[in-house]
C-alpha cells in the first residue's frame, strides 16, 4: 500500500462550462496537517469536497486509504466512513438534540449500540468542553458551541481524516478561539487534517504544509515557515501581502 492516506492525481472538475479544478496533484501522509489557502473562488471548497464525494470529479484519480473514489457506492460509503467533515455553516440537524446529532451516524452507520455511542458522545463533548449542552437543541447554542458540536459529531465516527471548510468564518470573533483551540488539540493528537482556513495562527502553529490554490490549481506548497517568509510565486506574494496587511 502507498505511504499516502490521500492521493489525488490530475483531479479536474467542471460546473457546466466553467472549470473549477484544473488538474490537482496532491497527497497527504497519515497524521499530516494541511492548511489550504487561496483567494475566494479559487476552488478550495470544491477540492476538499471532492475528497468525500460531496462533489464528483470528472477527470483524474482520488484514492483514500487505498480505496479508489469512483461511482461505486460501496467505495463511496467506505471512504465517507473514514472522513469527517466540518462545514462553515455547522449544518447541525436542528430537529435533533446535540446527543442525537452526535450518535446518529455511529449507531446507524457504524452499527454501535446506543449506550456505547452515547458514552463516546459524552467523551467527545467533554473534549470540546460542552458536556452540559448534551440534551439541548442546536438552536439553543451559540455559534461557537454549535461548531464544537459539529466537530464532535464528525469525530464520533472515529474517522482517520478530518476536513474543515472555513470552520470559523461564520463565527463572531470572541468565539473563534474556542473552536480553534479544539482544532489545535485535535491536530496535536495526530489526526490527519485538511483545513481551509484563513486563521494564520492555526496555520503557523500546527500545519505541516500550506497549500496555495489559485484559479483551480495548486500554485505553491511549502512548510509554514518557508511559505510565509519566502513565498516563491508572485500570486502567493500578492495574496500574503493582502491578508497580512
Amino acid at each position, binding site marked *: 500500500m502507498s505511504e499516502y492516506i490521500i492521493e489525488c492525481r490530475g483531479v479536474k472538475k467542471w460546473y457546466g462550462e466553467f472549470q473549477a479544478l484544473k488538474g490537482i496533484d496532491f497527497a497527504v501522509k497519515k497524521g499530516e496537517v494541511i492548511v489550504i489557502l487561496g483567494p475566494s473562488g479559487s476552488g478550495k471548497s470544491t477540492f476538499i469536497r471532492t475528497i*468525500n*464525494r*460531496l462533489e464528483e470529479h470528472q477527470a483524474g484519480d482520488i484514492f483514500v486509504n487505498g480505496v479508489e473514489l469512483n461511482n461505486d457506492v460501496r467505495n463511496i*460509503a467506505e471512504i*465517507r*466512513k473514514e*472522513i*469527517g*467533515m466540518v*462545514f462553515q*455553516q455547522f*449544518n*447541525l*440537524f*436542528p*430537529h435533533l438534540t446535540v446527543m442525537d446529532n452526535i450518535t*446518529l*451516524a455511529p449507531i*446507524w*452507520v457504524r452499527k454501535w449500540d446506543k449506550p456505547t455511542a452515547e458514552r463516546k458522545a459524552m467523551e467527545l463533548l467533554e473534549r470540546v468542553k460542552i458536556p452540559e449542552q448534551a440534551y439541548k437543541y*442546536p*438552536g439553543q447554542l451559540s455559534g461557537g458551541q454549535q461548531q464544537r458540536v459539529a466537530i464532535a*459529531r*464528525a469525530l464520533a*465516527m472515529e474517522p482517520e481524516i478530518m476536513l474543515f471548510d472555513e470552520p470559523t468564518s461564520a463565527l463572531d470573533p470572541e468565539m473563534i478561539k474556542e473552536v480553534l483551540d479544539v482544532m489545535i488539540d485535535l491536530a496535536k493528537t495526530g489526526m490527519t487534517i485538511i483545513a481551509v482556513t484563513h486563521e494564520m495562527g492555526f496555520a503557523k502553529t500546527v500545519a505541516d504544509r500550506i497549500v496555495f490554490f489559485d484559479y483551480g490549481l495548486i500554485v505553491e506548497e511549502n512548510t509554514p515557515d518557508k511559505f510565509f517568509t519566502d513565498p516563491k510565486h508572485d500570486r502567493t506574494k500578492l495574496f500574503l501581502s493582502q491578508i497580512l496587511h
Partner: protein
Amino acid sequence: MTTATDVTTTYEAPPRTEVGVLGWLKHNLFGSWFDTILTFVSLGLLYVILVPSVRWAVTKANWRAITTNILILIHGPYPQTQDYRVFIAIGIIVAMGIASVFIYRGKSTRSRQVMTLIWAISPFFIWYLLAGFEGSTILPLVEYSKWGGLLLSFILAIFGILASFPIGVLLALGRQSNMPIIKWMSTLYIEVVRGVPFITVLFMAQVMLPLILPPDVRVAGMFRAMVATALFSAAYLAENVRGGLQAIPKGQYEAADALGLSTFQQMYFIVLPQALRTVIPPIVGQFIGLFKDTSLVAIVGLLDFLKVSQSILSQAGFLGAQKEVYLFAALVYFVFSFAMSSASIRLEKQLGVGQR
C-alpha cells in the same frame, strides 16, 4: 452607585394598565381608535346574527328530526340489531384516545411502544368487529352496502388520510428523484390527479377498478370510494410535502452524506422529519378538506353522513326540517374539522414548528 446584587434582585412591578384584565382589554380590544371601532362593529354584528339564531334554536326549532334519527345519522342503514358493534368500536377508539393522552405524556418508553402497537393493529380489529364473519352467529356479516352515516364518512376519511400519507410522501420523493422515469411518472400522476375534480376520480374508481381486478372479484362501492379518496388525496399531499422538502437547506443533505448515512437513512432521519414538520398546517388543512369531501361519495350511491341527513327530509314527519337538519350537519362537520385543526396546532407547538 448600585452594586451588582441590587440590579439583579430588585425589580419594579409593571404599570397596572399593562397587566391583568385592564392590560388584556387595552392590548386586544382598545389598542387604538381603529381597534375600538372594530371591536364595537364586531360585537354589533355578533348580536345581530347570534341572538335570533339562538332564539330560533331554543324556542322554534324542532330538534326531534335529529333525535329520532340519531342512529341513522351515526351509522346509516347498518342493521340496528347489530349496531352495538358500532358503539363498541367508538368506545374502543375513545378509550385509546384517553389512554394515549396519559401514556404519551408519561415517561415509560415501554408503554408508549405498546400504545403505538395498539394503534397500529386497532384498525384491523375494528374492521372485523364491524364487518363480522361469514356464518358467524356472534358477529354475523354486515354487508358493506349497509355501512353509512357518520361511520362511513369517518372510514373514508381515516382510510384516505392513512393511505394517502405514505403514497403522497413517496410521490413527493419521486418527483424530486434523479431518476428520470420515476420523476416523470410521479409528476404525471400528481398533475393528472390534481387536474381533475374529485367526483371524476370517484366515477373512474367505480368504472376502472373492476377493469383492473380479475373479473370474479367484486369490490364493494365503499372500497372503490376508499381507493379513490386515497389516490386523490395523495397527489395533493405530495405537493404539500414537496414544499417541505424544498425548504430543507442543502447543508442538511451534505452533512448527512458526509457522515456516511445512506440515502434512505438521510431521508428517514434528517429530511422527512424536518420537511413534514414544516408542512403540518397545509397537510392538516388538506385532511380537513378530505373529510368534508367525503360528502361527495353520495354521487356514486354511498350513504354518507350528509346523504343520510338529507334522507331525513323525506320522512313524513320531518318534511320541512331543512334548517334543523342542515344546521346540525354543518355543526357536526365543523366540530370534527375544528378538532383536527386544534390538534394540529397543539402538535405544531409540541414539535416546535417555527422555532429553530
